[in-house]
């Protein structure tokens, strides 16, 4: 079956900044994303856990966005600025999708 090559962005970012990360995506033409919760983790700042935590600080969100290669550079430019001082990271993976039009 024919599939189309796209880029899968996976952004793990501290929850208080997740909204801004999404705004960056939208601004750079990524008009679809999905946000997920994470439970706990380990990073440069040591361990963290969201269990029992009430506020957004100290929690990490995962943002998933499948988009086209041509949008990638702009998105990564802005994300690099955003992530310079915030916890988290960004990965880009190659993926295939079934419908080219909707990305």
């Amino acid at each position, binding site marked *: 079956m024919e599939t189309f090559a796209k880029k899968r962005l996976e952004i793990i970012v*501290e929850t208080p900044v997740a909204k801004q990360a999404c705004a960056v995506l939208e601004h750079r033409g990524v008009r679809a994303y999905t946000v997920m919760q994470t439970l706990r983790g380990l990073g440069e700042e*040591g361990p963290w856990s969201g*269990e*029992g935590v009430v*506020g957004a*600080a100290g929690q990490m969100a995962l943002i998933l966005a499948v988009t086209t290669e041509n949008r990638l550079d702009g998105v990564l430019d802005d994300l690099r*600025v955003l992530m310079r001082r915030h916890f988290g990271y960004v990965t880009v993976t190659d993926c295939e999708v079934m419908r080219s039009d909707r990305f």
Partner: protein
Amino acid sequence: MDSLALAAQNLTSPMVLCFALGLAAALARSDLSIPEPIAKALSIYLLFAIGMKGGTSVAAHGVDATLLGAIFAGAVLSALIPVIAFIALRAISGLSRVDAAAVAAHYGSISIVTFVAGTSALGGLGIDFEGYMVAVAAVMEAPAILVALYLARSAASPEDAAAAEEEAHLPGEPNLMREVLLNGSIVLLVGAFAIGVIIGPAGAEEIAPFTVDPFKGVLCLFLLDMGLIAGRGLRSSVKYLSPPVLLFGLVAPFCGAALGLAAAAIVGLSVGGAALLAVLSASASYIAVPAAMRVALPQAQPAIYLTLSLGVTFPMNLTLGIPVYIAAAQAFLA
């Protein structure tokens, strides 16, 4: 009852014991934990119930001129305490400007659960307080953040300034003040307060089996959770707290409380109201301000401000502070 007897009695209250249980469990690395949505629900319940209680009391007793005075005093305290805290921290702690400003923001702002514990201690002693202290609590959340950001930015390093500048040009740069003021906790607290004012004691009666009767028990469970979080934080991050910073976390609340008491005396609050203004001034935020700092002052280290506020100041206020502030309010104002 003198302040020591009060403190001793306070130490064996179910509230404090639940916090201690959580703290001990976390320090012993037990896997006891409260699921995150449940912790949020407990917090929503407490805000709803305490807001409603304040509003109902205002509906019952009316408001007098001190209301405006108290609100004004709260705003001033919230703006003033960070300045003093910042100067003190810069003088004694060796924290960077940014970290000192972030810590200062927490101490100017308030912790609503400390406030709730204060009302509960007052209730146990049969001391009344002005219902609108809930509104004062809401007012005190935000000014500290503004002042602290000003302190931090007024002397940011060139790189920090440049980074902030560049970040500010990103789309979606949040309108911080709007976000703080429309923060879920504040909206719920103020909203429940307003509902309480509208429905009054008769209307509140209808839902009292939900908002009043189980209140203390829910508070116990929430404090268990706070003990768990505080213990976890201490375990992983107490190493980031130098002795002077620790000292700050233990002493600053008493200075804040003294300012709060003085302001209460000027404004003319009752003993109970004065004690609560002291509690608010002494308490340090651990929900709203940390989140605001991560957005607006990301270079400040959360391991310092969160651990200090939640792991040091909160337990101190809960166990020793609250009874002392109440005793002081009784001594100075009665």
